[in-house]
């Protein structure tokens, strides 16, 4: 069996304060290459908090997390940023495109930051991604000129820029209509079929049906008995 892309062991995130809050409580999981996993659970259950931990955006209070075999607990902020840049891609509920930049410019951002390729190669790759997601004719438009679904597809294209090991999506369809939701669902499923590992947080059971595996989180813990309403 191949080494997992991501392995979490007793991952816990606690917010200290007058009233300590445990967001994620002892979560252990493994994610294999090419898997499409949906993290589900009721509102406030800790789904997004777990995703932020898996995406190295937040640091666990305890536990271990290995990304592509590397123990991330030992990494400093710069090393975590380098791992996010080279190995992870994010899609959020709100597209978070930079409003001052064109669609093409937005997609090239992570590639330019990584600086692995020449500018003309970066632009060609970005155009290729936009074409793959049906946005080629919108490449030079500004984000404000696109629909919500189109913007989310641009965000997916941007997440794919550096050919990441893992795509992490936080409620990627939470702000979309049903047609756009279905479109994004198909895109993520297609990516997984092509060997891309995808982890998505969703509360949409219909969307989750496209996943290979569903992980339910209740009160910060994995609950295999939880069923969506």
């Amino acid at each position, binding site marked *: 069996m191949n080494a997992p892309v991501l392995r979490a062991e007793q991952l816990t995130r606690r917010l200290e304060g007058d009233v300590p809050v445990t967001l994620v409580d002892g979560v252990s999981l493994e994610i294999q290459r090419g898997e499409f996993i949906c993290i589900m659970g009721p509102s406030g259950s800790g789904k*997004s908090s777990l995703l*932020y931990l898996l*995406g190295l*955006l*937040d640091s666990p209070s305890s536990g271990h997390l290995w990304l592509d075999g590397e123990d991330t607990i030992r990494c400093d*902020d*710069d090393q975590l*940023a*380098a*791992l*996010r*840049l*080279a190995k*992870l891609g*994010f899609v*959020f*509920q*709100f597209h*978070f495109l*930079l*409003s*001052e*930049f064109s669609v093409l410019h937005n997609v090239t*951002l*992570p590639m*330019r*930051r*990584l600086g692995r390729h020449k500018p003309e190669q970066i632009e060609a790759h970005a155009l290729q991604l936009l074409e793959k997601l049906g946005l080629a004719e919108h490449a030079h438009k500004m984000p404000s000129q696109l629909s919500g679904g189109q913007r989310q597809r641009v965000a997916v294209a*941007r997440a794919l820029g550096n050919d990441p090991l893992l795509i992490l999506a*936080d*409620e990627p369809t939470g702000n979309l209509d049903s047609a756009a939701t279905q479109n994004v669902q198909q895109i993520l499923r297609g990516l997984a079929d092509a060997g891309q590992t995808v982890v998505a947080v969703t509360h949409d059971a219909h969307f989750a049906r496209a996943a290979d595996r569903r992980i339910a989180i209740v009160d910060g813990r994995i609950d295999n008995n939880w069923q969506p309403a």
Partner: protein
Amino acid sequence: MPIQLDIALSHLLHRRRATLVSLLGVTLGVAFFLAVSSLMRGSERDFLQRLVDNSPHITVYDQYRKPHVQPAELRWPGAAVAISNVKPQVETRGIRSYRDKLDTIEALPGVRIAPVLTGSAVLTFAGQLQGVNLSGVVPARMKTVSTIEDKMVQGSLDDLASTPNGLIIGQGLVDKFQLRLGSTVSMISAGSEARIMKVVGIFRTGNAAYDESEAFTLLKRAQAILERPNRVNRFIIQLQDPHAAREVAADIERSIGYKSVSWLEASEDILSLLLVRNIIMYSVVAAILVVASFGIYNTISTIVIEKQRDIAILKSMGFRTRDIRRIFVLQGLITGAMGSSSGLLLGYGLMHVLAAVELRPPGVSDVVHMPIWWGPEQYLIAVAFAMASCVGAAYLPASKAGQLKPVDTLRGAA
């Protein structure tokens, strides 16, 4: 183009009005800095030039900086000695063997020297009396060390050589006594007989006190009037390099023993005043730039608040804390660089306008122009100060932006 610069430019371009206000602040700050600095430094240089031109670079006096040790003190050091019936030696004051000492000093490179005997005398004419400071000079030498020849309105220093009892006096005294060229006056000093002198020259320096109280005659005539034959009591020295005066004066004093005072030493109070004036001037004009930097701080702080989501997404993409900080510091740098450039142009224009201003001070017939200093250092100081203010103002919000935790913003957005 580096991606941080690209993002910094896009932020500035999308907040055009705030960016323009910040730019205007820096532009005006740099321009006023230049205008005030060039005027202040110009007036300082003008003042120093007048000081250097109109006063001796070095004056050697017939005094010693430290009094000679008395024989009794040498014999009984530290003792209290009472010696009765001691009479001080009567001597004619002045620089001893002045011709030898004059030759010694004249042998130094870049030195022009004139011997002078000065003393007090009283000028009388038609029952009027006026105390004057009489200077006995050698005209040929005096012309090389003094600007008095340039101030002559009638006659010249050379006329003293051709008229043994010739006298040159100021316009103030001429007006007071109602004299004219060729008039004869009587001159007397303490203990001497009255001598008839003929006015052979008139000078006007513009300094009323000087023009009323200074008089020049031949050195030999002054020695006779002041009863100090073959003596001078000062050397007036001009140097090719006035700024070497302190070192040359020290060399002369070591060489001949007499007190040698450079113009820098003589004007220490004025020079320290100018230093204080410069500090005040730079503080005031720097304050303008500091105020301008608040505009930049305000603009960049607003951008940081507005762009929290962008910062979060950039960090989630893999931008490091220092990448984010650099984006906002670059905004300060860009504003500073553009504001400085336009400020330099505006300031240069203001300097030309100031240089063209014509003034007619009361009592002066000539048109006076504002003294402007065009030295390159002030441009560098203005730009350096503007850039430091802008980067400093940008660094605070930039640092805050760099410290933002993406999770905090993303949780808030969800």
